[in-house]
């Protein structure tokens, strides 16, 4: 695994790519990782950072596989 500090630092860089993918519809972390070609554990870190600052939000219930889908939040 890459150093957490390094991964976290890159969130502003990958944010646009993840948001543009989520613009096509809500995705789980594995789905987003597959679509972006990025490691799921890193996508998870970035997504949770984006969630913290209101850029994405989860759907109410997880999928049958046990994953939540996340959607981009439209900012006014």
């Amino acid at each position: 695994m890459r150093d957490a500090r390094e991964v976290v630092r890159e969130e502003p860089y990958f944010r646009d790519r993840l948001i543009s993918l989520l613009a096509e519809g809500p995705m789980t972390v594995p789905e987003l990782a597959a679509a972006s070609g990025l490691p799921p554990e890193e996508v998870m870190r970035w997504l949770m950072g984006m969630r913290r600052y209101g850029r994405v939000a989860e759907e109410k219930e997880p999928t049958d596989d046990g994953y939540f889908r996340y959607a981009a939040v439209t900012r006014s």
Partner: protein
Amino acid sequence: MGYDTEYDALVIGSGIGGMESALKLGDMGYKVLVVEKEASIGGKMILLSKVFPTLDCASCISTPKMGATAHHPNVTVLTYSQVEHVQRRPDGGFRARVHSAPRFVDPARCTGCHLCEMACTVSVPDQFNGELVARHAAYIPFPQAVPQKALIERAGTSPCTFNCPAGIKAHGYVSLVRSGEYDKAYDLVLETTPLVGTLGRACYAPCEESCTRSSLEGPVPIRRLKRFIADRHGAARVGTDATDGRPGAAGAKRVAVVGSGPTGLTAAWLLARKGHRVHVLEAAPEAGGALRLGIPSYRLPVEVVEADIANLTAAGVEIETNHPVGDLGALREEGYDAVVVATGTPVPARLGVPGEATLEGVHSALGFLRDIKLGAAPDLSGQVVAVVGGGNVAIDTARSALRLGAGKVHMVCLEARPEMPAHEWEVAEALAEGVELHDTWGIAGFSGQDRVEGLQLQRCTSVLDEQGRFAPRFDEGTRQELPCTTVLVAIGMGADTAAFPDLAPDGARRFVVDPATHKTPVFGVFAAGDAVTGPATIAKAVGQGRKVAHMVDRWLTGRPLTGFVGPLPEVDRADVLARQHNFTRHRAHDAALRFAAVPDGFEELEGPLSEEEARAGAVDCLDCGVCSECHECVAACPADAIDFDMRATDTEVEVGSVVVATGYELFPAELKPNYGYGRYRNVVTGTQMERLLAPTRPFNTVLRPGDGKVPERIAYVMCTGSRDQTVGNPLCSKFCCMYSLKQNQLVMGALPLADVTVHYIDIRAAGKGYDEFFEQAKAMGTNFVKGRVSGISEKANGDLVLRYEDIDNGGRPAEAEYDLVVLAVGVTPNTGPAGLFQPGELAFDPYGYVAEVDEDFSPGATSIPGVFVAATASGPRDIPESILHAGAAAAQAAAYLEQNKKVPV
């Protein structure tokens, strides 16, 4: 050092123990000072989910204590502060030194609105969430923090910013580019200078030389990022909306800036942004000084300089060219309130060799370069050109001569190549283009009658004397003739002191100013730039312009000529590298230069970065100073609370007694490598699980950090780092069993379908209601497996395989597979208190905790009379025990104060 203050007691640390001691002493009427190293009081308890065995909300219990501590009339709290030293006085009291780190946010103004945090462009792991999620460099520690005030994490000034002579927030604009905020990045540079595009091309980039990333695979392309944002900015937007003041407003002062080089333009720009009416007076037919008339277009295209100058004109600065100034006094009479002289170094130095002034074909390099930029370039077709000099101007001259068709270009300089003043990469580029270097040669004379036919060279044996002064020595027996048809002399340049003799009294070769204020001997006249410092880089000239603008503005507004606050100390690059366990090798950045064997034009050499290259380059930044100084928080803060000029303060306090309540450290789970913490994605610590279960959790629910899956099979590995001789910690940490049992129940509440298994040696549940709590966990369905876990391995999908000893089934080795593994980490001593006192003064027990001299009959008393230890600083304790022990320590301190009444109360 701040003023002395007197307190009855100093409580070091504000966890539940420290708060309890402080409140008890405060309630008894003693004046208490609490010093907390974090930005909030509350310690570790406030970060817990719930407490055992009651399953009460930890926040609900902690926050009233935090509020009571912060608002108690007898308790003063200093957060983000550390006690550095405590010295016992002969009268039984103590003198302590407290270091308070700057928050860079004025707590009196901050409303806790989080807008600065939202705007911040730097992400770091959130230590208050077990580093499971990012926080920003501007932040409020956690939702229940006391005080609920923002702060900005700054480790110092990033090397790129610290080493920029212009004072540009290099890290700031890199951070903004990383975020895709190109216009904001451009505006950030405008806070310092209008010359964004110019510096993006022609600066020698000391920022990159100092970049910490250089020690990995190469620097962040900081200069080229500046060019990128300038190119993006383009001609459509010329900076009018970036002004913070309108020139010509009522009451505005009039300022004349003489000279339009980098110093003059920067000073004019910044003074205009302050609201002054600024006129730039330039003797040459074009504005820009050396930028416009000195630097060749292959390095700095004219249109780039013109675009930068357009920033000034858009902001209302009036620029008059062909306007030489000879009488500074007359400018004052014309109504200018202040004058800034920034005329640079336009006078070429001379060789002083016979024939230099009379022979046809001998020219100064400055005039040569100026003629090219003014469209009067000489035709050098077929000429053999000799450039004399070894600096960057000489390089520019030689390469320009090649572009004008010279058949051959020689460079002659006194220095050996490694000692040449020109940058090595510039020398290399010149040689790659075909320039022939003759180093360690001086000029003895010229050959030729009316027109130069050659240079007579003599070997230079040394350039500097023993004191490092320029004093070349020659071997006159070693001579050489260098045939040439044109000689261009580039051996230096100086200020035009003849034009302003009042500024260079007593034959000074530069303008004389007060170095602190830039005031000249002439009232109302300031000077700056190369004319004051001697020839320097563009960035240094910009820095001079920035400083003189600051001083002139203060002078015009009747304020003391101070307040030019320097940066925080430079971050130690070794410290930056030590923050990470590993580094990913990032992309190499192609210099993208185009060389031609015979260059035939002045087309720009260096290519631009694409947007993708720019962002990929910016993401390499290591955020050395943590905060990048991008100033987005300044723009976002509605209360004007951000203050980057805040600095640390040190205070000496006199206290009657000391309570050490510095708590414990968590066992670093990496020290059990067979459990894979830090390597396996879904192995977490018990503390991280507390955060996942807390109402203010980092994720939306309990999820695997590796892929966001809701875990269905969760294992607890007990005694991780406790009762373990292999890691040097034989002690039981006392509360891991109970917090694990608590988490078991909370997990089953949060995830009703989850199976929870505890791998344990034995469960220690001694305490009122504790064993019942254990039974409750079993009744809820927790599966208990007796036996040590020997190791964990990770599957490709992130699932984890535990290998363990199954004692209840004959002790056979067994394996089980889980979605998530929680390591019930224990505690280790906080060794911080050791450094607070004289070596050996404060005794520690064999395990490293602060020793109690008689823990049965005198709990809390230490080896130092008047110093008491509270709660987990003396050993592992759970919350009720910690509170009890902290109360005892407070009682001990009170008794000591009463016995020692002579100590000021």
